[in-house]
């Protein structure tokens, strides 16, 4: 593992030389930290070529009649597995454009995989359990991460200079639930922009 890590460092070294770190804090209008907000950064210099990999598993499990995680950030084209850890069967689907799928009834410990080919948001639900809602944020940038419970999304090794920071959250009151801002990223140090967003749980829905 160490060898791999070192390799990676070597590969990324030239980039790293002029790269900076970003720690975006997302808060709602009341000032509370917002979790599950997906922060994507698009440098003005463009996105590096090559396949995108994330440090988290591309899995959306069904556990306790809920999708876990609620929001999954997945690179475009990646295959996401949907393991069922409940005793009941689930019928997972998405009607989201480009990422429509339907996983007909499957039982405990069965796992299905779906490839998400379109960049965007795939809202996933269960046709049996209305309360089950989850999101797969399909991104085309390696600079993507969701906020934790503290509302902070940290990214490292970003090319310094002008960047566009986009923040998506399923409950964000904005077109396509996404808000974007231009940001000048310094070459060194950690930039800590804070973003305040209007977050509202949807009414009439059956979500947690």
């Amino acid at each position: 593992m160490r060898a791999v890590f070192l390799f990676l460092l070597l590969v990324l070294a030239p980039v790293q030389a002029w790269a900076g770190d970003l720690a975006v804090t997302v808060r709602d209008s009341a000032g509370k930290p917002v979790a599950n907000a997906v922060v994507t950064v698009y440098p003005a210099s463009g996105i590096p070529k090559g396949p995108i990999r994330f440090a988290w598993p591309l899995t959306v499990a069904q556990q306790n009649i809920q999708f876990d995680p609620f929001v999954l950030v997945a690179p475009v084209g990646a295959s996401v597995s949907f393991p069922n850890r409940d005793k009941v069967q689930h019928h997972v689907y998405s009607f989201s454009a480009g990422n429509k799928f339907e996983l007909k009834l499957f039982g405990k410990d069965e796992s299905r995989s779906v490839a998400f080919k379109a960049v965007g948001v795939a809202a996933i639900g269960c046709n049996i359990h209305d309360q089950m809602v989850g999101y797969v944020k399909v991104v085309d940038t390696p600079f993507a991460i969701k906020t934790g419970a503290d509302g902070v999304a940290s990214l490292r090794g970003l090319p310094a200079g002008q960047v566009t920071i986009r923040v998506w959250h399923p409950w964000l009151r904005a077109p396509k639930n996404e808000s974007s801002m231009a940001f000048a990223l310094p070459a060194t140090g950690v930039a800590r922009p804070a973003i305040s967003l209007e977050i509202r749980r949807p009414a009439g829905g059956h979500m947690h």
Partner: protein
Amino acid sequence: MIRFSSLRGRLTVLYAGLFGVALLATAVAVTLSVGGNARHQVEKELAAGGAVFDRLWAMKASQLADGARVLSRDFGFREAFASGDAPTVESALTNLKDRLALDRAFIIAADGTLTGAPDIGEAAATDLWHALDSGALSGVLRISETPYQAVAEPIMAPQLVGWVVFAERLDRKEMASLESLASIPLSAAVLTRQQGAPWLSTDAGRAAEPRLARFVDVRATGPRPLATDNGEAVALARPLTVIGEKADAVLVLRYPLNLAMAPYHSLLVTLVFVGFLGLCLLVAGSWLLARSITRPISALDEAARRLRDGEDAHVEVDTGDELGRLADSFNAMAGGIREREQRITALALTDQETALPNRRALEAAIAQADPAGLYIAAIGVDRFPQVRAAVGYRLAGEMLRQLALRLGDLRPGDLCARLSSERLALMFRAGSPAMALGQLESLVEALSRPVRVDGQTIDVGLNAGLAAVAQAHLAPPAERASIALDQARKSRRAAVAFDAETYGDPASKLSLMSEMLAALANGEISMAYQPKHDTRAGVVTGVEALVRWNHPIRGFVSPDMFVGLAEETGHIRALTVWTLDQALRDQAALRLSGHDLLVSVNLSGRMLADPEFATLAIDRIAGAGGRICLEITETAVIDHPETAHDIIDRFRAAGIKISIDDYGSGLSSLAYLKQIRADELKIDKEFILTLDRSARDALLVKSTVDLAHSLGLQTVAEGVETAESLAILTAMGCDLAQGYFIARPMPLANVVDFLDEARAPAAPKSRKA
């Protein structure tokens, strides 16, 4: 205050009025209570109706939501909608709309786009989106101002992608179905308005009725009164949630009070009917009661009126109460009064002395009889006072009773009555006045037999007067009969019928007296003088003064008439004084023309009872220095002998001569000749007029002249109308002669001429008559 003429009316109205007031109070109380009760009931019902409506509204919303949910949860539909498969989505909407018989079904997407509702504009869509987005999923939705009950159901795919909206029109039909579910017949209506705009009724576009709009404007939830075209109602306004635009909606439930009152109408009608019936019974009852009280009172009232009018006043009241006893007392009183009245009437109509009906009874009988052919006879006993004085009052009365009995025997069936103390009357019928008079004459003859009273026989001389009841005259028949009796006596006939002309007219006599007093002043009454011839000297030595009255209308009025009348009416003194004065003046005038004559003045017997007059006359005569002879009739002395003698003596003492007039007629008595110290005796003309034909009269005159001379009296003969008579009288030694042969009575002026002429050598005989 109303005044009742009858007790019955007063009692009836009083009772009916009291009951009516009580009834009215009851009716008002019941109506108020019923009205209040009904209103309270209606308010409760309305409140319940409002609650029912809430449930119905929720139920309807639930039904709509169920339908919408069927669609919104359908996997295929969600897939179609999420994937933008518009035709599939629309067909699915239409399919469900038809199946559920919905008025409206459409979708509004999360981005605001509408499917299935082309008539909703962009602004309205935005409003709706905001409403749905804010969670208002059920309520009133207005599309083109038409109200709908709408329910939205979110489409989750799995997050919110839009809403299915189902809506039912709130039209009349919907209201009717709502009304039909209520337990009371209320009417429901939904009013909506854009905020600030006027209220609209359920039917699209129509303005709400103003009163209703005002009612709704008052934001109060409880039941309240509302005036409507159909009378007062109780209404309830319940605000409804509006989704979409800024608008208000309100449900109004109305319940007309008259409908609420309807169940009580029969009660009120019954109450009114029972009250009216009661009133009728009460009026009838109190009328009957009042009548049972007032009928005896009315009977008593009527009987009292009859009693007053002198009719039979017995009253029949057979009740045993106070009124019955009052009636008994009244009857007893009426009986007593009647009895006494009959007694009084009998007394008033009966002559106590003879037990005959009296004059009043006779007049009453005349008044009641048919006047045609009816006659009244008055039969009088001649010289009754003298007879009565002779036999005494009791026997005189008995005599009259005997005569009445005899009259009754002779004329059974005819009413016999006592007219006055000495007169009886008979009421009888006859075919004609002549027949009546004939009957009366024979009756008087039959009656004129001596009457035996207490063993004595009394001769009765009877006269009778007859009066026809039918004859028109001021004097009543009984009086006329009595007057006729007087006339019969005067004419010394057994029976005469009433002669109105002879009797004259008492009323005109009275007016004649007042005219006489005026005539004395204005010269209508004048003096005439008849010369007295001295048979020895052959010259006129005196004149008799005679009054003459030339009435402007009546013409020559007989002195006998007006002198007699003046005596009767008390005017004789004025007449006598005037005569005396005039005679004295005329004597003075004659003296101036050279003729000194003794003037004789007639003196009424009444004046011999008047000492004041004597004083006056003596003064006047002495004052004028007159030579006067007062001629008095011997009968004048009879009435007041003492006074008359005194006065005669006073006259004689004053040098006034006294002459006894009309000697020989009447009750000439030697006693009087002895008592009256007269200077002259005037022989009545009745003896003188026939002197030349009757030897017997001549003998009487001769002996009277001799008698007078022997008593020291001068004699005067009246009524000398022929030369033979004068010659005989002269031969007999009669001192003075007076009569038409000597001279008629003449005015003063002619007397002078006459005397002047007589002084010439020509004898009186040559004078023209």
